[in-house]
């Protein structure tokens, strides 16, 4: 290993044994190696691109894509540009991620709490769920659900239906679509007012409790405001415009397909099912660990102060458990977002599938396309982790 031969009696250390010199020397070496490696890659790449006659730069962004996309939130046709394809893909990625995060959180918290249930059967069932799903590759689960929906679900004529409004078949999930007619703005304004009112109410009641110790039923009042004010807006709107301004467009079977309503394509349904079921298994373990991390003494102390079960959970246990839960939960949300890229395997048109897949194949501009895709995911990851770090800091224990 390193030289240990020098003895202090020789007077002073040789310069190559001086830690400062060594540190600077190694750093220069590292920087030089990284720079040389980067230069090597750059030179090879530009030589290869030139030799193969591949254009570089971002001109492709504005040229016509010429392929169709089955599911898009924004206006898209075959004449749209590659840039448009990118935005379609990005929006679909975000859709899957956000819906997946919501579903996985709900399922994960439920399973996690169920695993801690004193009820033996319930906790065993939660354990089986967790141990099964988290030990099976996500891609396999996506394939499984996709195959099941395409081949196992009924034909369109024999759809599973729920009260004749929601239909599930091998072409996807059909739900009623709300149609907003003029006057709906009053309802939305009502929501805005209600949210503002709730924020004001909670600060006011908090201040009052600090000052006088009196409590105010904030939750019930807020709930009332949140439902009541928009309902009032709706009522006024229907009086002014003569009729309720929201109607629902129900899907109905016409010919060989459903018309009307909004449709979730089978790819999206399979992806959501697999992603949220898989991530929920991990979230459940995190939730369980978080709740177990709050010692029972905290609950006993709260009880001895006279708090009932509800307030104990809400004011003592959950805030402390969240502190343990949030950091790993963040990384699960990040994982889910990154795992949404597996959609490429079942051709759901999200970013990797349409942009890093089809656009790359058509243009051949690997460096730009992969670069943009990776930069975007990196940005998304950093954004979520910044947000969660901020939240984590807010929740963290304030120490002296």
């Amino acid at each position, binding site marked *: 290993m390193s030289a240990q031969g020098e003895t202090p009696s020789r007077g002073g250390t040789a310069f190559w044994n001086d830690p400062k010199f060594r540190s600077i020397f190694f750093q220069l070496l590292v920087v030089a190696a990284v720079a040389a490696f980067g230069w090597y890659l750059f030179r090879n790449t530009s030589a290869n691109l030139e030799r193969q006659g591949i254009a570089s730069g971002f001109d492709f962004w504005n040229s016509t894509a010429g392929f169709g996309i089955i599911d898009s939130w924004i206006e898209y046709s075959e004449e749209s540009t590659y840039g448009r394809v990118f935005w379609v893909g990005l929006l679909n990625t975000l859709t899957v991620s956000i819906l997946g995060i919501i579903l996985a959180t709900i399922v994960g918290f439920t399973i996690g709490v169920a695993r801690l249930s004193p009820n033996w059967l319930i906790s065993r069932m939660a354990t089986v769920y967790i141990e099964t799903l988290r030990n099976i590759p996500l891609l396999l689960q996506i394939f499984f659900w996709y195959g099941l929906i395409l081949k196992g679900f009924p034909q369109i004529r024999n759809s599973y239906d729920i009260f004749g409004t929601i239909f599930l078949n091998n072409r996807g999930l059909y739900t009623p679509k709300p149609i907003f007619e003029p006057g709906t703005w009053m309802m939305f304004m009502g929501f805005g007012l209600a949210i503002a009112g709730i924020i004001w109410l909670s600060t006011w009641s908090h201040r009052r409790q600090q000052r006088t110790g009196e409590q105010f039923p904030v939750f019930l009042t807020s709930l009332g405001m949140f439902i009541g004010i928009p309902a009032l807006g709706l009522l006024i709107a229907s009086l002014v415009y003569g009729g309720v301004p929201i109607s629902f467009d129900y899907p109905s079977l016409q010919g060989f397909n459903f018309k009307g309503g909004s449709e979730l394509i089978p790819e999206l349904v399979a992806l959501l099912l697999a992603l949220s079921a898989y991530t929920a298994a991990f979230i459940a373990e995190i939730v369980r660990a978080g709740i177990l991390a709050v010692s029972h003494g905290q609950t006993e102390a709260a009880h001895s102060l006279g708090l009932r079960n509800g307030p104990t959970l809400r004011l003592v246990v959950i805030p402390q458990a969240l502190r343990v839960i949030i950091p790993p939960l963040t990384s699960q949300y990040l994982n889910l977002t990154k795992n949404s890229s597996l959609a490429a*395997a079942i051709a759901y048109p999200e970013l990797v599938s349409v942009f890093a897949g089809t656009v790359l194949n058509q243009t051949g501009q690997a460096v730009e396309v992969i670069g943009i895709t990776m930069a975007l995911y990196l940005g998304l*990851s950093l954004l979520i982790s910044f947000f969660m770090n901020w939240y984590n800091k807010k929740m963290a224990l304030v120490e002296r």
Partner: protein
Amino acid sequence: MTDTASNGAIVKHDRHEDLPPPKSEVGIYGWIYHNLLYPWYNAVLTLIGSAIAIWAISGVVDYIFIGSIWVGDGPEACTAQDGSVIHACWVFIDARFHQFIYGPFYPEAFRWRINYSFLLLALVATPLFLNPEWIRRGIGLAVAGVATIFSLVAYGAGPAAVIAFMMFAPYGLSYIRLGTILPHSDQNAVIGFGVRLAVIVAAGVAGYFLGGAILGDNEAIASGWILAFLTFGLVTLNKASVKSWIAFLLIFIYPFIAFFLWVGDGFGLDYIETPKWGGLFLTLVVAGTGIAASLPVGILFALGRRSEMPAVRAVSIGFIELWRGVPLITVLFMSSVMLPLFLPEGVNFDKLLRALIGVALFSSAYMAEVVRGGLQAIPKGQYEAAASMGLGYWQMMRLIILPQALKLVIPGIVNTFIGLFKDTTLVLIIGLFDLLGSVQAATTDPKWVAMFVEGYIFTAFVFWIFCFGMSRYSMHIERKLHTGHKRR
């Protein structure tokens, strides 16, 4: 004994016998009462839960066992009289089993090479799990003898010789102490190090020329490296135990044997192109390479991230955050379409190697973060104590910090391995036929097109066994290595 006192009251003098505990507290009934029925909402939950459980279990049992078909010759065995398909049709798995294990394109005549390579790995590693030392020696030598005779019958003289060498060598090598003859590196580092390096290089060069002369050009480089590594072990592992020698052979020599068994083109083995690899074999190769690469590289980057040198730290953070921030699939896309552009003209990596590089980079970044967690948990006093003993940076890390840090993060390391193992399925997206890819390919066969559920259940079962096994084994290791005071 009761007396009647003078005023007529009944007085009891002896203690009443203990009453039995209430029926609701003990026994099976008590257990059921407390775990399933109390309070009332638990009874409701139990009712709903058992309904779901019975529905699910009966459905699964009916699908997998009762209504299924296990034996038959082809898809006809699973076709009912009215032409519909009977599920579950395990005949499908049986018919395609070899394709799932070795891949759809692997030549049948060479399957023995894969079997032999994994058999060798298992046999050589066996003594590592036998404790204590005398059992290891006794059973280890016995297994070595039986395995040699068995392989002589099953595979022939060459493979038997390899098995014999790999299994017997650790016992003999642990007695050779070449390091004590050479100048000691503690007295003069430059001479000690120089002599050792010279011996290793000399052995390597000798191996190169000997191998080239006796065997041929393809074997020359390999035999040079093998001899150099063996010498490296001889001069560095002095008082090494049998266990260390087994680990050494597994880490430094086994990869060469595995390479020639899998790829061939040397030592009289035919060449098999990597596009022909597939099935569970490919999954294990990708996962194994990722695991083997991720630990050392991850440790290096974790140390880099904790370094006091800003440039080293910046490079490590950049590397880790870049790979951790992007999905594996974009890494695989990158390595499959961009890597060829990065290389100079004429140099060409095959598809599998590109995927392996992508997987290794990706898993190293995750491993680095896990190891960093362990490093951060080591109290500063340990670093200071090590420094005050006169240990240099690498000695301090190797002897004091890393053994403690790695022990702390075993669960995290194994979780990363499990994650990596599951993530190997992604290689099918860039066109490699791993286990899932082979099953996918088999279900597109029109004869078997209805059998995808059976295929997926089989795949899920295989992955589940591996992942669940790994997690249980890590728990076992954790308990074994727990040297501190246990609570409770």
